[in-house]
């Protein structure tokens, strides 16, 4: 079983306690009315599906109940890093360092 580090519980917890909550760092536009249909579609429906690193939201739903962000490798399923919701997106260099 995978152990996922919860930044709120500050501990490794079994994956069964967590639920996936989609891609992280999706910024909602402040001016929703100004979007064209294509722009709205891209913002609302289109998500990355990379082979490799992805930034995701997870929720420690059967634990502290908090949403958190994770850097996960989609091939190895490895969680490289988790951090609190609201914290800045890791830079490309941060992610490169995590892969070393």
């Amino acid at each position, binding site marked *: *079983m995978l152990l996922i580090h919860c930044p*709120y*519980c*500050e501990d490794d*917890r*079994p994956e*069964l*306690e967590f639920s996936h909550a989609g891609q992280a760092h999706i910024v909602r536009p402040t001016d929703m009315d100004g979007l064209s249909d294509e722009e709205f579609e891209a913002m609302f429906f289109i998500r990355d599906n990379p082979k490799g690193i992805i930034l995701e939201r997870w929720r420690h739903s*059967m*634990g*502290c*109940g*908090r949403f958190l962000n994770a850097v996960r490798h989609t091939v190895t399923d490895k969680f490289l890093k988790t951090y609190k919701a609201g914290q800045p997106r890791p830079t490309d260099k941060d992610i490169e360092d995590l892969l070393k």
Partner: protein
Amino acid sequence: MADSITAERREIVAGFKFANNAVSIEAAPAASRTNLRATTAGAKSFGKSISLELPTIMHETASKAGRHALKLGPDEWLLIDTKNINDSMVPRLANKNFSAVDISHRNCAFVISGAGAANTLNTACPRDLSLAAFPVGTCSRTLFGKAEVVLYRTAKDTFRLECWRTFATYVRDYLMDGAKDAHI
């Protein structure tokens, strides 16, 4: 004038008892329970109203005179009163800086004790329940089978398991199955 009605409290698994060589499982007596969501200041003022200082560190607990406060999340506490079981702990204050909900009748609890208590729980709970990882006085929301539960280690070999009453029969049967495995 209409006669007043007294509602009879019916616990879902009242009187349940099971024991083998390794573990004994009992339904805990009825209790009063409150779920509290609050800021640090809110938790302080709520703690004053029930004269129990609420824990501030995640997964820690505080107990006094039959009252237990369990810190489940950064801003969430579960409060259990095993003495005044029919009294709500929600204070009647005008200015509330917290959200407290009486959940006395939503939850029920099991007490699992004995040398095989952790093994019994581990048949359906993925958490590390060794004393090093889950010391006495620790609490946590977690999973038991498919049910959301709150575990509270009250002694080295004793756990209190709080679950929703709708899950109670499922949890009870699963615990008995687990107890058979822990017994081997």
